[in-house]
């Protein structure tokens, strides 16, 4: 039987509904409590006045306070920076929420803990504020890491700044993100006033060529270190630098490139100077004359020093007058050197180098050290040319436009070069003197030879002119055979006196217009040996004595005085033999009339390779027949 009335049913249903509601409420309560218990982020729930109503377990853990110590207190009391948290409260009330504001809280032990504060306002159904949540995220690890990073960055920065090389870091857009102190200082010294960080490297270093930036693209793409020698332009200056481009990776990609710029301009210049000085030192002995030497020095020096205006002045030993030995002047005014007390004479007279600017020159004029002459120079550099203890001149460079173009280093270079120049000048002067002496000696020797020939011709009129004609012919044959001029000279002198030995043969034998008997002939045949005895003591450069003694020897050994064969007869003697025979046959003799030149040539042609040397005969025939040589 169903005893339930409608009223009872309604009550039962209401009871059941309330029980379900209560069940749901319990579940919600557990859910909320669990959230508070396990919430990993320290969270506090505050009433609108900032009084703590609840905290999560993690909040207790963060601050070291128990919940009952925290609840009822103000959140403000926990913060080390009161103003900061008030500010956050204000923002929260205005904006309903605040995210990640950094603050510092103080735990129970009094230690400060950096936290990120986030807040969220809680409102009721009528939009009235009933409280707010405050979440504190402990960022002490991050702050420590940041502090460590700051320290690390400071150390890194200090390290970079302590390095003398310029260092900068560029991003993928080739914008500079960092420069070290050395580079910053260098840029400042060079008058680059712009702040390099944030600028493109193209603007700071005037990189106009595509190659300069393609290197960076390559490092970004390939991730490989690149070392190169580059010409870096900053302001108006250009430097030679060893540039290292080092990739900085972010995972697999190159994020930035560190560039280390090591200025090697000075080193390069030193190398260039050494090269130039080496070239000058090695070539100075190979040049033929001083002008060529001065040209060479100017050319090589031009690689390291401005030689637009360059001259070398030398002092004459005799009258001590100073004159230009070499000069190049941009104004074309290089004909003569001003006389009087000039800068050049100052260097020479005082035996000291001089590097002076326009103002210095004016001062020197005022003090009377030099005379008042036009001063077109902005800078003038002269060094004395010292040979042993004597100053023989000066080497000078000057510039009419830039007073900074020369330095003390340039002076040292010129001083080094001046030693080379002075040595070369002295050597050349000595050579000239030797050559002059030699020429004088040669002239003297030639005069003696001519005198000896004249003496012989006075005793033997038939040989008058013979020796000169033989000499001409012998020289012509020698040249045809390609002998040197020195050899030709030797043949010439030997030919002029080849019959000097006849001076010991009685004149009546020499001049007798009949054939000589055997005894007389034997006497005549002694003249080559006597001639040898006469000239052997004279120190000729060429074997004149041997030419004289062998000029009657024959290839087949049938000649005199020694009857030696062709292999023992020197070439010059074989030439003289042919010339002597041809000239003798073509000339009148007391004992026979003169033959024609053709007959004479036929005679030597007939005995070619028996009495006379084949090559010499052929040369002789050629000069007569082809070259139309005439004896007279």
């Amino acid at each position, binding site marked *: 039987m169903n005893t339930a009335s409608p009223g009872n049913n309604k009550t039962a249903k209401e009871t059941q509904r309330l029980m379900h509601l*209560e069940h749901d*409420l*319990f579940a*919600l*309560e*557990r859910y*909320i*409590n669990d959230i508070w218990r396990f919430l990993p982020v320290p969270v506090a*729930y505050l*009433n*609108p*006045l*900032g*009084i703590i*109503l*609840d905290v999560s377990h993690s909040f207790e853990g963060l601050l070291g306070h*128990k*919940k*009952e110590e925290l*609840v*009822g207190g*103000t959140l403000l009391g926990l913060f080390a920076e009161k103003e900061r948290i008030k500010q956050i409260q204000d923002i929260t009330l205005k904006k309903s929420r605040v995210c990640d504001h950094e603050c510092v809280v103080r735990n129970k032990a009094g230690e400060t803990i950096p936290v990120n504060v986030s807040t969220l306002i809680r409102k*009721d159904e009528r939009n*009235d504020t*009933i*409280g707010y949540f405050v979440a504190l995220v402990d960022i002490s690890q991050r702050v420590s890491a940041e502090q460590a990073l700051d320290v690390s960055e400071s150390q890194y920065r200090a390290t970079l700044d302590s390095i003398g090389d310029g260092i900068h870091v560029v991003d993928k857009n080739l914008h500079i993100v960092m420069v070290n102190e050395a580079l910053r200082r260098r840029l400042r010294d060079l008058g680059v006033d712009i702040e390099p960080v944030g600028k493109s490297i193209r603007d700071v270093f005037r990189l106009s060529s595509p190659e300069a930036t393609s290197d960076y693209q390559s490092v970004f793409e390939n991730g490989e270190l690149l070392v190169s020698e580059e010409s870096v332009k900053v302001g108006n200056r250009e430097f030679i630098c060893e540039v290292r481009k080092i990739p900085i990776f972010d995972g697999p990609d190159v994020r930035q490139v560190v560039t280390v710029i090591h200025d090697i301009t000075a080193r390069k210049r030193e190398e260039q100077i050494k090269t130039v000085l080496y070239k000058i030192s090695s070539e100075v002995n190979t040049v033929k004359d001083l002008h060529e030497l001065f040209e060479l020095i100017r050319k090589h020096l031009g690689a390291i020093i401005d030689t637009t205006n360059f001259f070398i002045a030398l002092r004459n030993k005799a009258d001590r007058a100073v004159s230009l030995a070499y000069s190049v002047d941009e104004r074309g005014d290089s004909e003569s050197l001003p006389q009087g007390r000039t800068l050049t004479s100052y260097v020479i007279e005082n035996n000291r180098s001089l590097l002076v600017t326009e103002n210095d020159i004016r001062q020197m004029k005022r003090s009377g050290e030099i005379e008042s002459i036009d001063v077109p120079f902005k800078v003038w550099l002269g060094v004395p040319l010292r040979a042993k203890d004597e100053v023989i001149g000066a080497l000078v460079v000057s510039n009419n436009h830039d007073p900074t173009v020369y330095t003390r280093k340039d002076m040292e270079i010129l001083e080094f070069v001046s030693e080379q120049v002075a040595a070369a000048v002295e050597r050349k002067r000595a050579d000239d003197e030797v050559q002059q002496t030699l020429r004088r000696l040669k002239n003297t020797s030639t005069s003696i030879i001519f005198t000896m020939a004249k003496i012989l011709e006075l005793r033997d009129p038939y040989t008058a002119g013979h020796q000169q004609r033989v000499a001409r012919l012998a020289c012509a044959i020698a040249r045809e055979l390609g002998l040197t001029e020195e050899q030709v000279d030797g043949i010439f002198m030997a030919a002029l006196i080849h019959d000097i030995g006849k001076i010991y043969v009685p004149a009546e034998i020499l001049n007798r217009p009949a054939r000589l008997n055997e005894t007389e002939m034997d006497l005549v045949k002694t003249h080559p040996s006597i001639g040898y005895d006469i000239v052997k003591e004279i120190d000729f450069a060429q074997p004149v004595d041997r030419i004289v003694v062998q000029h009657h020897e024959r290839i087949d050994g049938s000649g005199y005085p020694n009857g030696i064969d062709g292999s023992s007869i020197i070439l010059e003697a074989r030439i003289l033999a042919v010339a002597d025979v041809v000239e003798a046959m073509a000339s009148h003799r007391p004992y026979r009339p003169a033959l024609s030149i053709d007959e004479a040539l036929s005679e030597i042609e007939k005995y070619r390779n028996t009495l006379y040397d084949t090559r010499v005969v052929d040369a002789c025939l050629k000069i007569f027949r082809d070259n139309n040589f005439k004896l007279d």
Partner: protein
Amino acid sequence: MITRAEFQDIIKLEGQARGSTLNTDAAYVESQEGKEGLHKVEAAFRQLGYPVEYKHIKDMGWYPICLRVLSLRVIQDVFGLKPMDLRTMGDTAPKFSFLVKVFMKFTGVSELAARRVPGYWRMHYSVGDMCASEVNGQAGYVIVQLTDFKTHQILCRYFEGYFRRLLQFSFVDQDVEIRETKCMFKGDPHHEYRITWK
């Protein structure tokens, strides 16, 4: 010690109280004496033949009001609490109260806040009524009356702390004082508390 007669009187009390009021007791004991302290309280309940395990009590659940009184009495006995300690316990309770956290609105002391007092009372107890009979924000006092609530004197001291703390939640850095000016156990028609602040 709770006598058998007292126990019998208490369990005869009619009405219900939210579990939240009991859990604040447990939270207080645990905060002061640790879990061991709470175990001692639960052991004392078992000795009374009225076993209670606080962990099963739900904040939003309704429980016999006798349990509310017994909880305080047992804790008082186990730890030898004096009236002042009970006041402190009441003072601490709002800090652990789920209801306070979830439902209390702290809008300062005003007429509007005063109107919320009855509702707030009924949120915790099914018997008795509470109202703010006089509110004077400028003078710095409020008078709260609790009627039809003659359960046990132990609650008089407890409420002194509890109401003080609730009002303290509405002030920052201000001293709040409370005094029970009328008590039903002293023959007054209702309980009355005068709460003042500077």
